């Protein structure tokens, strides 16, 4: 029972990190209709920068640097590359991000190789006893912090003018443009926001109990793709739900690895995709996605 509770808390923590990754991905998709296949490598780049610089400049500065680098990269991707493609050619944009992903992954593979770099976060390696539960400090911080972050984001989107513009153009880009909202600014903001969220989530993913920053972080982060599909791809609430589902299921399955041995070793790593396929068979547009009728 205690163990199940621990697993659940760990699962929710992982799920919240997925939710951050998925949120960024979905925000970009909603604001620009671009599927960013480079999202997971943005994340890895962010934590790599943190891990590579923390020994010299300290963790806090390194984290800010990581955020800044990915934010700038996302901005550059939007401004220098994607904006040169016809705004309606979403296929070309998605493929461009695949090319970008290949380049980024190659560079990170070259730098990281088989290494595991320590993240150096102050909370790394600590555990907390909460009554009968023993949890890594990372998990406690995530479970407490990420909801605050998401809440802040929601407040930003609902209360500020910027958020209104953002939501208007997410709902109806053409209409928002007619109403004088600058789509370029909105899409640039969405990209930067997604990069920041991904890096934040990456720091969580690379923290204890994870051994540190290695190439495998990227394949962990890729599970945000099925999470986005499960949630419905064009729904922010769905993104959070999808992330949570994937996180909890992964941790529960990995925790019961022994009794699930018939499914093979490492089933926890792929269970997200199984859940995704089941959800797609049941609801092709995901749990919270909207079914669109293309206008003709």
């Amino acid at each position, binding site marked *: 029972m205690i163990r199940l509770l621990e697993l659940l808390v760990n699962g929710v923590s992982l799920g919240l990190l997925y939710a951050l990754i998925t949120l960024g991905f979905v925000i970009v998709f909603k604001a620009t209709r671009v*599927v960013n*296949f480079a999202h997971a490598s943005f994340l890895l780049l962010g934590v790599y920068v943190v891990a590579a610089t923390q020994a010299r400049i300290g963790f806090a500065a390194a984290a800010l640097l990581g955020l800044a680098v990915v934010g700038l990269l996302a901005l550059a991707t939007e401004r220098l*590359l994607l904006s*040169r*493609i016809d705004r309606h*050619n*979403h*296929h*070309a*944009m*998605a*493929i*461009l991000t*695949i*090319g*970008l*992903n*290949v*380049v980024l*992954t*190659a*560079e990170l*593979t*070259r730098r990281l190789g088989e290494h595991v770099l320590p993240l150096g976060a102050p909370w790394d390696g600590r555990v907390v006893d909460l009554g009968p539960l023993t949890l890594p400090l990372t998990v406690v911080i995530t479970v407490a912090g990420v909801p605050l972050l998401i809440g802040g984001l929601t407040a930003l989107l609902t209360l500020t003018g910027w958020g209104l513009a953002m939501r208007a153009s997410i709902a109806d880009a053409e209409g928002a443009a007619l109403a004088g909202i600058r789509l370029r600014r909105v899409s640039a903001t969405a990209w930067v926001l997604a990069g920041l969220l991904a890096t934040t989530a990456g720091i969580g993913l690379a923290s204890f109990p994870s051994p540190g920053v290695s190439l495998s972080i990227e394949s962990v982060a*890729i599970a945000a*793709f*099925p999470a*986005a*599909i499960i949630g419905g*791809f064009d729904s922010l609430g769905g993104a959070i739900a999808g992330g949570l589902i994937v996180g909890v299921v992964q941790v529960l399955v990995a925790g019961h690895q022994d009794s699930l041995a018939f499914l*093979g*070793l*490492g*089933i926890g*790593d*792929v269970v*997200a*995709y*199984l859940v*995704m*396929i089941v959800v*797609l*068979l049941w609801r*092709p547009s995901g749990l919270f996605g909207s079914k669109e009728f*293309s206008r*003709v």
Partner: protein
Amino acid sequence: MSESSVSESTVSENTATEDTVAPARAATAAGTRTRTPPHRLPAVAAAVAAVVVALALPLYVDAFWLRIGLFAMAAAVGALGLTILFGAAGQLSLGHAFFVAVGTYGYAFLAGGDGGHLTGLGLPPLAAAVLATLLAGLCGLLFSPVASRLRGIYLGIASLGLVFLGHHLLLNLRPVTGGYDGRSVTPFALGGFAFSDASGLVVLGVPFGAVENLWYLFLAVTVAATLVARNVLRGRPGRAFRLMRDSEVGAAAMGVRVQRTKASAFVLSSMYAGVAGVLTALAFQRAVPDYFDLLLSIDFLAMIILGGLGSTSGAIIGATFVVALPIVLSRYADVLPLVVGPGQDGLDASIAAQFVYGALVVVVMLTQPGGLRAMVHAVRDRRGPASA
């Protein structure tokens, strides 16, 4: 049924007002149309020339280059399947590597024998190859409830899962796959002739070993795969695919059964991947799980994008480029700046190749969405009218 609807044609008869010319003329124009329109002749000539050169190559070129050719042809067949699926039907798949793996392991299992902890059916290689292809198609069919309901890029994300699930199966179905270490592959043989170094064949003074023998096998398969792909793309299914890609609603209004058509494109492309997998097995002579990762799927995508989406010749050119690039870079590492061979300190050739083609994908999307082939056409068209 189709007969009657044609002969029911009355449009031009009854409306031979000032709107139309005599119907007879239209009919004759269609009847006398040559099978190969003149503007396609250079392309046909080029294809014939390429095949002739390919036939003669083993007599002049050493095994290193022939081996690249084998990998390129295996990849080209897979790329043809993906270009039908994504280039024509507009359905992105990042799960292509999975179906290639089914072909590779399917062949290894069906043709392989029992031994140690491994099992195999020991079928004749040709039967194993055909069944492995069908098996890949069957896997495509099993995924088609998903593949037929999603559109374009979304399918790309969903199919990504196949690679991970596939990798999991390859590691865990040990008796069939050999787990992490993989399993070796029975060489191809047909009617007593072994496509191996033991064939003992000597042609024009050149001893034919495994590579030379396989070269002709691969060439035959690649040519057949290309012709089939061309027929499909130019015929009724290809036209339905392309309208569906450009507008699902438009295609449906023309009577195209959209879900079924998507499923059929997916199954066909899976079978192409299956053939590619069998060829890969024969070229490598070994099946290892780590080869079939997401990067392989992305390789295939890069091939068809660089070559030009939806084009058969583009798929072949793109496949050759993507396959040959890392091998050639590594071979000439000593003379190339920056690049180093495997195990040395510096820019690894395979990484360098990824930089090059990743960047090329970006550049192609920014400049010429039709790929390298379109660039060639653009240059030719620019020259064309001027010289004419």
